[in-house]
């Protein structure tokens, strides 16, 4: 199925959950924040949140800023 992550179309296996998606993307769940269809997820939600075709995700992290 197709997801939109950070503005880009990304192919992912059906019914993948957010936790697995992050490991596929080699991202440390402790160090990112995930917004699914404009709703912010807590780390606890990651493994229980299955994604479906067309879901829109924002995955953000802290960077240096003034």
């Amino acid at each position, binding site marked *: 199925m197709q997801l939109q992550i950070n503005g880009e179309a990304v192919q992912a296996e059906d019914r993948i959950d957010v936790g697995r998606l992050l490991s596929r993307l080699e991202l440390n769940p402790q160090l*990112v*924040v995930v917004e699914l269809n404009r709703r912010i997820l807590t780390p606890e939600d990651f493994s229980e949140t299955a994604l479906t075709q067309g879901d829109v995700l924002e995955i953000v992290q802290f960077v*240096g800023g003034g």
Partner: protein
Amino acid sequence: MDNLVIAGRSFRSRLMIGTGKFSSNRAMVSAMEASGCEIVTVALRRVDLANPQDSMLQHIDRNRYLLLPNTSGARDAEEAVRLARLARAAGCEPWVKLEVTPDPYHLLPDPVETLKAAEILVKEGFIVLPYMPADPVLAKRLEEAGTAAVMPLGAPIGTNRGLRTRDLLAIIIEQARIPVVVDAGLGAPSHAAEAMEMGADAVLVNTALADTPNPAGMSAAFAKGVQAGREAFLAGLGGQRNQAEASSPLTGFLRNEG
């Protein structure tokens, strides 16, 4: 002890530093340590899926430094509120440096959207430190809206031009009942010292610390400048005179006056 108190929390250092534009995480950390700062700002950005960077968070001792996420990039109140919520979800304490800068060239704050976002975030329990124009009336309105401090700009960000809004900063400081943190444009320790001499409660510096061959040295210098200005403010500065005044006695010269 002469501590800075924001939202009931006490800080020994009156120098906050921004973590942007450092050549390396090592340089950033050396600056943080040399500055003695206790509050550092950070930004939120999309992860680059093509090549994910290791997070700068791993380099910052969360027990030593309070992370102050900014809402940089927000062009209106809604975007700013969204960023603040994401930052809190990342496990930060609910402190936010509110920035709403619609103009990508001069990166100046929007007074109306900043006030709107501040009202929302205060209601949601955030401790809000808004970056703002040096506008005394807006400062009062933000204070009335419940912000924990105000952060008026000394000069457009990154210009190193110092206190180009001097007269208005003085009025903001005179009227404020919350801490005034001068932010943006401070390019040298003398600029930071002058802000503190005027009675500012703290300053935030980034570009001048990142944009030097020696971030640690410059950060130590700013720390001293902030302390110098603060101590002079507490000791009580004399006013300026238009007429010279001798520092040596005006009598007892080796001549017989008429």
